C-alpha cells in the first residue's frame, strides 16, 4: 500500500501525485518507470513514469493524464488515500555521461519523466538545453523546475499563448544547425512528437534517445505485450527499454499497436492522447516538411 502525500492538478486532465514508495525512491534512476494498479482484483496495471523522487523521505512523484479507467480513478484520489500496488522501478535507467551539450525535449506530460533526466545530465557536467512543448500556456508543466535544472529553457506552444509559437521541432532544428550542435538529444512525449524529433535530428546525425510508453501487463519481461520494432528487430520496452535510439524505432507500427484497444477506451469517455497530438502537429506529412526531416 502506498499513501498519497500530495496532489496537484496541472490542468483539466493532468495531475501530479506524490506517494510513499521507499524502496522505489531509494533505487530508481532517471529514465525508469513504475506500474500502478489501483485495485488488485480487477484493476489494470498501467505504466507511469517517475517524475521525481526523494530517497530520504521515501516518496516518488507521478504525473499522468486522465486517459483510461485507471488514470480517471487516480485523479479522484486525494492526500491520505491509498494506491494498492506500485511496482518498480522498471526498465533500464538512462545512460548518463558527460557529452557536452544535451538537448532535452519534452512534450505534454512527457516533460515530467524528462525532469529527472535533465537533472542527471546537468549533474554529470553537461550543458543542458531544455525545450518544453505544450498546446497552450495552461498545459505547460514543470516550468520552474526545468528552468532551475537547465542551462537554457525554451518554451513552445501551439497557439503562441506562452513562449514561442510553434512546434518543438523548430528550435530543435535550429540547435542542430547552430555552430555548436548538441552531442545528444533526448525526446519524451507523445509518439508522434518523438517520431518527428527523431526525423528532425537524423539529417544532422545527432544521436537521439526516445522513451517509449507502450501497453504493458507484467512489465518484467514475461508477456511481450510491449514489443516494438527497433532497427528491424522486435524489442521489449519493459526490459530492453524504455529508451531506444529514436532513429531506429518504427514509430508507425508502435502508434498502430497502441490503438489496439482504442474502441474500448473511448467507451470510457477518454479523448485519445495521440489524436490530440496528431491534431497538434496537423497533417503528419506537412509536419515532416516543416521539420525538414522525415520522408
Amino acid at each position: 500500500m502506498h499513501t498519497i502525500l500530495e496532489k496537484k492538478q496541472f490542468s483539466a486532465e493532468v495531475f501530479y501525485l506524490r506517494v510513499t514508495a521507499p524502496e522505489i525512491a531509494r533505487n530508481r534512476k532517471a529514465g525508469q518507470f513504475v506500474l500502478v494498479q489501483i485495485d488488485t482484483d480487477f484493476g489494470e496495471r498501467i505504466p507511469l513514469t517517475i517524475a521525481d523522487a526523494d530517497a530520504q523521505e521515501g516518496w516518488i512523484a507521478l504525473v499522468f493524464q486522465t486517459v483510461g479507467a485507471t488514470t480517471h480513478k487516480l485523479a479522484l484520489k486525494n492526500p491520505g488515500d491509498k494506491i494498492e500496488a506500485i511496482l518498480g522501478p522498471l526498465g533500464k535507467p538512462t545512460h548518463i555521461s558527460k557529452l557536452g551539450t544535451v538537448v532535452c525535449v519534452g512534450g505534454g506530460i512527457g516533460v515530467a519523466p524528462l525532469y529527472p533526466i535533465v537533472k542527471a545530465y546537468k549533474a554529470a557536467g553537461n550543458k543542458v538545453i531544455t525545450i518544453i512543448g505544450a498546446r497552450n500556456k495552461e498545459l505547460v508543466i514543470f516550468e520552474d523546475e526545468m528552468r532551475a535544472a537547465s542551462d537554457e529553457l525554451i518554451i513552445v506552444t501551439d497557439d503562441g499563448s506562452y513562449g514561442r509559437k510553434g512546434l518543438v521541432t523548430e528550435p530543435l532544428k535550429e540547435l542542430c544547425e547552430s555552430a555548436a550542435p548538441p552531442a545528444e538529444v533526448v525526446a519524451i512525449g507523445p509518439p508522434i512528437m518523438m517520431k518527428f524529433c527523431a526525423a528532425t535530428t537524423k539529417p544532422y546525425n545527432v544521436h537521439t534517445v526516445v522513451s517509449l510508453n507502450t501497453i504493458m501487463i507484467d512489465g518484467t519481461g514475461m508477456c511481450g505485450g510491449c514489443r516494438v520494432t527497433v532497427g528491424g528487430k522486435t524489442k521489449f520496452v519493459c526490459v530492453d527499454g524504455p529508451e531506444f535510439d529514436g532513429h531506429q524505432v518504427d514509430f508507425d507500427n508502435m502508434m498502430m499497436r497502441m490503438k489496439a484497444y482504442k474502441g474500448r477506451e473511448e467507451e470510457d469517455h477518454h479523448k485519445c492522447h495521440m489524436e490530440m497530438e496528431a491534431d497538434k502537429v496537423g497533417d503528419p506529412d506537412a509536419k515532416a516538411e516543416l521539420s525538414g526531416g522525415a520522408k
Partner: protein
Amino acid sequence: MSHKTKEQLGAEAVQIWNSIKDAQLSPKDRMAIPPQEMATGDPAKRAREMSEVALGYTDEQARVEAARCLGCKNRPCVSACPVGVPIPEFIACIQNGDYAKAVATIKTANLLPAICGRVCPQERQCQSACTLGKSLKSVDLSVAIGRLERFVADWERDNNRIIPPAVASPTGKKVAVIGSGPAGLTVAADVRRAGHEVTVFEAFHKTGGVMVYGIPEFRLPKAIVQKEVDVLKAMGVVFRTNFLVGRTETIYDLLDREKYDAAFIGTGAGLPKFMDIPGENLIGVFSANEYLTRANLMKAYDTSRAATPLYQAKTVAVVGGGNVAMDACRMAFRLGAEKVYCIYRRTRDEMPARVEEVNHAEEEGVEFLFLKNPTKILGDETGKVRAVEVLEYELGEPDASGRRSPVAKPGTEHEIPVDAMIVALGNESNPLMAQTTDGLETTKRGNIVVDAKQRTSLKRVWAGGDIVLGAATVILAMGEGRKAAKSINDYLAGNEEEQAD
C-alpha cells in the same frame, strides 16, 4: 464418445466397488477392473465458462481405480516421478479408504498434490512406467495416478483437513525466495520447515506465478493455489507482492543490506518466442503469455468488472502444440471466439501437450490444423489481423528429439481468415536477473547455470525451475525446488560448503 455425467460414472463405480470390495483380488482380477473415466463438464456448455472442466472422482470411483494398482514391488512409477512420490503406497491407502494417510504419504515427497494431480503430464511420467498400462498395451489404461492424487488432495481440502507442516524452532537465519511459482513455493515450504525465516518476493500483485497468470481457472482453480499459499502463510512464510528483485532491490541488496543468509531464484519463464514472420506486430497478435495473463490474472473475461481490456475476436488461430497452446485455444472459446484453430507443424502424435488437454480441447471444438505452419500474418487497413498465411508440411526423418521432423511443401501457401493470432511457441529466458546481478553465470540462452545442488555461480544464491530449465513443467520446477531447499538447509546448518568452488 458419449458424454457421461459424474452421477452416471459414480453410479457405475458403486456397482463395481460392491462386487470387489470384499474380494481377495489377484493381479488378473485387478487387470480386469475397468479403468475409471473422470467426469467433465458438458463440452458445449463448459467451453463458454471459466469453471473447472475436470470434475474429479467420486469416492467409489477412486477406490475402484485404486484397486487396479498391482502394487509392484519394483515401483517403476516412483522412479518415473520427478519428485519420487510413494505411489503404490498412497494408492493402497485409497483402496483401504484411509484418505488421510494417502495424502500424508504423498506429502512426504510432494507438498502440492492438488496442483500436480491436475497439471502433471502423468502419461509421460508415472503412468508411462505403470506395469498395468504396459500389460494392457496402452498408457491410457495405466492406473490413473494423477486423478487419484487429485482425489485425495481435494478430499483433504474440502474436509478442512489440511494441517500446516510443523516448523522447527527458529534458527535466526533468513532466506529470500524470488518468485512465488511452483519452484519458489516448494523452496519456501521446505526451508521454513527447517526453522528459517522465509520471505517470498513476487513481482505480480498475486502469488502463485504461472499457476495464477498462466494456467487457466478451468484447468487449475485459483482457489486451490491460494489455499497452498495460505498454508505457507500459516507456517509463517512472509509474502511481498509487487516487489521485483533486480529492480526494487537487487539480490546483493537483499544479501548484504537486508542480511538474508541465502537466496533462491525461481523467476520462471521469460520473454515469449515469436516466429519472426511478417505481420507479427499487427494488432491482434498476442503471445500466449499476454493472452492468458490478461484473461487469468487480470480477469479480462469478466468484462463488467475488469479494467484490463479484452481483444474481441470471433475466429482465433493459435500456433503451437504444447499445454500453453491448448490453454490459449480453450481460453479463446471462453472469451467469445466462435471458431478456434490450433496450427501445429507436426501431427497429433508429436504434440507435447498433455493428452487430456488435447482431448478436452478437441471436445470443446478446437479445430486442429496439423502439418501447417504460419508464414505471414496479414492485416487490414487499420493494422488489425485479418488472415494468416500457412505453408503445408509432411513428416520426414526423425530429428535429434526422436520426433519425425516436418518438411515444408513449397507452393502450398494459403490464407486462413482469422481475427486474432496467438503465438504459443515457448519462452526465452527472462533477462532481468542477469541484467541486474553482476557475476551471475548464465548459458548462451540466458538460463541460470547451476550445479547438481542448484547452486549458482554466486555465493549464497540458488536457482531452479524454468529460469534454469527453460520452459518446463510445474513438477520439474518443484523437483528443482526440493533439491535447492535441501542444499540451502544443509548450508544454513553448517553442513555444506557455500559453493562448489
